[in-house]
């Protein structure tokens, strides 16, 4: 019952639907008593040979009116009750979505997408069923069942009612019992199914090995074995499943037998008419459903409660990064300053960054290089406040990032993340993602800047081509350039390119960076790159290793230092030669390679 209390706020919110719906349901329940009553009257009249056409016509008309009324009312309670339940589902789903938009990346990193999806689909579904079918079975089983029993007892014979009901509790008990057995066996069947699922998964991902060893037939045999196990486990479910119908038939049959047998006694001693007996058996038929419904009800409520608890606990997670009281709402602007003594991710032990001090004057370009995991992305995430650093450690225009509202902070920054993410929408919509109102001219302009315009025109539907999961597959480089165009459309004060050109060939990269330098004069740019040619022109370059700055300076200065940076520059030069298929030049770099590292 607790789930109904937990959902009380919703019942109150949908007061009208629920009161009216349950009301109509009760009226229908009352009306359902009417047809057996008419049958009894007519049967009795035929029996007593007192039936007149007028009498028959009158009652049949009433029956027709009742039937049509019931049809209409039955339609309406469905709309009222199920409609309200669907609205609950809609509302919960909307709340979950809104909640997700307030969460920081940490929230998503700690949970699997599949689990979050399950909350918004399966759990919402279970709660929806509780608020719809749950309320219905509640009313049906308790109110309707009670009403039928009451009318049997009051209008016909309370003695016969008691007799007829004797086997019924056994049915409720048996159905509950079977449910429990079913559940246990069902879990085993599920496990067998998941075994077979894993087997197929393994077979498909290991298809080359299976083929290389020619083990197709053996795999088939092992799949056959597993599929037999699935059959076996499901047969044990079927054994119980097949009990429900016969048990109900048996109990109802016994109840009918008792009714007719004892009814015969009452008819012979004149306590009852034959018509009343007929009416009584019809009522008995109406009792089967409420008894079953009671069995379902407990099941529905249990599931609903577990699901609702899960949804609530998810909604109760407070966003770990949010706006401060009285935060600055004016867009962030000015020089960027990192003054980090140490930053460690909440779940990590070793710091991701330590002793990073750097100032980027407004309009300057900062290059950040280093191996994977050296802390480049963390630096940017701190600036974006995707993760929260020590207070005051990162500031823009002299104001710490946490003193801005998230909106003010992020409105100043165009961010092109490492893992380019496109939405299932047209190319136009993807570029205009951050500014949906942008004109076609503006969109085209940034696409040209990002050197992706030509690529787009080559697609059959141009800017209207669908991309993303269900659209055309673009190359990694094309996706990256689209992400860049998307950020450029915002014309941000600060642009962050987090290794955003790794899949673009060096020549195109150079062209893009060159036009960016022209286009973004006076604006700040932060670039992280694996390919060092991309940051040659930066005003300052930081070389990170394990979260610390090991070298810094301009390209020229760093080359002179003959450290990691200089060694890497030569290595990448050689690599580019090999990619092109080799050639005679570049021997100088080859010659110097081993020496720089020793």
């Amino acid at each position, binding site marked *: 019952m607790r789930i109904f209390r937990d959902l009380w706020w919703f019942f109150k919110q949908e007061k009208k639907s629920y009161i009216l719906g349950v009301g109509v349901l009760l009226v229908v329940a009352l009306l359902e008593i009417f047809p057996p009553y008419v*049958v009894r009257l*007519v049967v009795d009249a*035929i029996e007593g040979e007192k039936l007149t056409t007028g009498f028959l016509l009158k009652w049949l008309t009433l*029956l*027709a009116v009742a*039937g049509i009324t*019931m049809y209409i009312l*039955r339609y309406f309670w*469905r*709309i009222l009750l199920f*409609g309200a339940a*669907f609205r609950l589902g*809609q509302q919960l789903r*909307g709340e979950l979505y*809104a909640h997700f*938009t*307030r969460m920081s990346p940490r929230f998503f990193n700690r949970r699997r997408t599949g689990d979050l999806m399950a909350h918004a*689909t399966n759990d919402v579904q279970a709660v929806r069923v509780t608020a719809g079918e749950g309320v219905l079975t509640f009313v049906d089983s308790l109110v309707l069942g009670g009403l039928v029993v009451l009318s049997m007892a009051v209008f016909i014979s309370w003695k016969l009612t008691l007799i007829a009901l004797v086997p019924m509790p056994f049915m409720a008990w048996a159905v509950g019992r079977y449910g429990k057995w079913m559940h246990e066996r069902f879990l085993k069947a599920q496990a067998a199914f998941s075994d077979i699922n894993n087997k197929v*998964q393994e*077979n*498909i991902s290991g*298809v*080359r*090995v*299976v083929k*290389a*060893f020619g*083990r197709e037939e*053996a795999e*088939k045999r*092992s799949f056959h074995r597993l599929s037999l196990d699935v*059959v076996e486990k499901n*047969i044990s479910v*079927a054994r119980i499943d*097949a009990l429900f119908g016969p048990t109900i*038939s*048996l109990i109802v049959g016994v109840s009918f037998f008792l009714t*007719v047998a004892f009814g*015969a*006694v009452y008819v012979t001693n*004149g306590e009852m008419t034959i018509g009343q007996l007929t009416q009584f058996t*019809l009522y008995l038929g109406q009792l089967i459903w409420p008894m079953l419904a009671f069995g379902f009800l407990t099941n529905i409520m249990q599931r609903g409660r577990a699901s609702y608890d899960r949804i609530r606990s998810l909604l109760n997670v407070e966003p770990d990064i949010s706006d401060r009281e009285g935060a600055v709402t004016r867009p962030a602007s000015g020089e960027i300053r990192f003054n980090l003594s140490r930053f460690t991710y909440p779940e990590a032990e070793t710091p991701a960054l330590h002793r990073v001090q750097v100032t980027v004057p407004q309009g300057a370009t900062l290059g950040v290089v280093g191996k994977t995991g050296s802390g480049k992305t963390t630096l940017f995430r701190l600036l974006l406040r*995707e993760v929260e650093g020590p207070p005051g450690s990162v500031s823009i225009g002299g104001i710490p990032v946490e003193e801005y509202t*998230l909106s003010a902070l*992020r409105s100043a920054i165009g*961010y092109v*993340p490492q893992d380019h*993410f496109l*939405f299932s929408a047209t190319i136009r919509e993807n570029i205009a993602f*951050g500014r949906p109102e942008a004109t076609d001219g503006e969109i085209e302009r940034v696409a040209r800047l990002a050197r992706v315009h030509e690529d787009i025109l080559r697609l059959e539907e141009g800017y209207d081509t669908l991309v993303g999961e*269900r659209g055309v597959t673009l190359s990694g480089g094309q996706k990256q350039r689209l992400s860049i165009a998307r950020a450029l459309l915002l014309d941000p004060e600060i642009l962050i390119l987090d290794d955003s050109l790794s899949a673009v060939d060096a020549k195109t990269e150079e062209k893009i960076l060159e036009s960016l330098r022209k286009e973004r004069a006076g604006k700040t740019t932060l670039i992280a790159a694996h390919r060092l040619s991309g940051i040659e022109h930066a005003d300052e370059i930081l070389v990170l290793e394990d979260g610390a700055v090991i070298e810094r300076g301009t390209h020229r200065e760093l080359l002179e230092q003959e450290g990691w940076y200089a060694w890497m520059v030569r*290595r990448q030069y*050689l690599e580019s*030669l*090999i*990619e092109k*298929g080799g050639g005679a030049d570049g021997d100088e770099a*080859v010659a110097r390679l*081993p020496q*720089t590292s020793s």
Partner: protein
Amino acid sequence: MVMRRLLGYLKPHRKTLICAFILLLLATGAEVAGPLLAKIFIDDYLTPGIFPAKPLVFLGGAYLGLLLAGVVMQYFQQFTFHRIALRVIQQLRVDVFGKVQHLGLSFFDRMPGGALVSRITNDTEAVKELFVSVLSTFVQNLVLILGVFVALFLLNVELAAYCLVLLPLICGLMVVYRRLSHRAYREVRRKLSELNAKLSESIQGMNVIQALRQEGRLKREFGVTNREHYLANMQTTRLNGLLLRPAVDLIYLLTIMAVLTFFGIGMEESAVQIGVLYAFINLLDRMFEPVNQMMQQLSFLQQSLVSASRVFELLDEERLAPAREGSGNPEITRGRIVFDNVTFSYDGKTDVLKNISFTAEPGQTVALVGHTGSGKTSIINLLMRFYPLKKGRITIDGVPLERYRDDELRRKMGLVLQDPFLFVGTVEDNIRFHHPDLTDAEIREAARFVQADSFIEKLPKGYREPVGERGATFSSGQRQLLSFARTMALNPRILVLDEATAHVDTETEEKIQEALSRMRKGRTTIAIAHRLSTVQDADLILVLHRGEILERGTHQELLAHQGLYHKMYRLQQGMEESQTG
């Protein structure tokens, strides 16, 4: 079409099916006979004042006996139908899985693994619903309705004949509902998948959404789809309200009215049969619940058929793995491999290999080196006969590759893949890999040969140590050694190596290198090498670039040539020194 093919799967179960049908008929007979007995009792024996003790005992006994027998038969009948359904689905699964085993890699390249798994498991599971609930519901309830009509005809032929009007009425209702609900439910499913797609996309791209401050807009867009989904659901609710139970109940009431009228009017002409009236009403009551149940199954029926058609599509797939051509059973004895002017393309448009020719003499090692996408893996794919060869010729011991039987090729050519694939089972299972003819001693000998025995014996359960999904509990070096042992257990004539790029600790690396050189001894070896240091002793090194052999020769010859190989070598030397120094 789909339905007929599905029903074809019932053929092997014909006998059991007939038994179940007979049980079903008997059980239904027993079920409808009950009210008939009650009718006889009420009609013939029940009159106020005289208690019919004897008929009550007699008829009552018969009633209870019938009830009990009916219930027992009902149980076995339901259980049997369910069991047949499970067997049918098992057969379907085994068929589709078996089919997939014989498809070529060109098929797997294009079909996402997740979708394929879902076809084999989830879609067949949906077909199971068709056999377990939909078909059995229909069969049972149709028989029940038939039984009710038989009983009605026994009671009163004239009235029963009138009741036949109900059949087209109910069928009409079903057809209308099926057509409308199919459309409505499809809309619900479409909206739901749209909703789920939006949700999962938003969860995955939330950092982009937040960075571009589009939370508000996406919330609104989600709200729109959410509302459309709600409206679609309301449409099905309306449809169900108009055409399902309320409509069936209305038809039931109209039928009752007709029956009452019939008896009311007929009263003047013949003797009153109250018992008949009682039985009629009672039987009709029993007829409408089956109608309700069948109608509720209609939308599932549609879904199951869609799933079934997807399964059949896979069963009809024609991209089979290349098989043997010609006759005879040539054997690989020496292991001389010749590639003669081989050109190959995966998609028929761009050639990934162009005019590749080389010879590997028995016992020699040929190393393939080159940049990603240079065609190394394609050479191996062709040699393993994973893809059909269209231009050029590959021969082993002078016999064209396509003339060998599958098992001869697989037994004599050992492939070691870059990603050592371990599967769930024990260490021993992974080495044996479904070869029951390998003795335990041979398994252990193979492990010893690649020096995997030392770490296996240190495991708590030794060779019986369980291996988890993808061998996650083992280090990548250990995984490689195990996959070496798997290959060596078969003692192949030819070794095809795709060297791993993953870094392992120095000690394991040494073991791996030692194992590899032992494995190569006396066997013709085609090896993809990522680390040039491992192929310096190769008899022939082929330097590939964009599908062509750019340079060929031994290590010394290639270094002297001062070309691409030379540069690659120096680059790697530099890298290794920077890592160790």
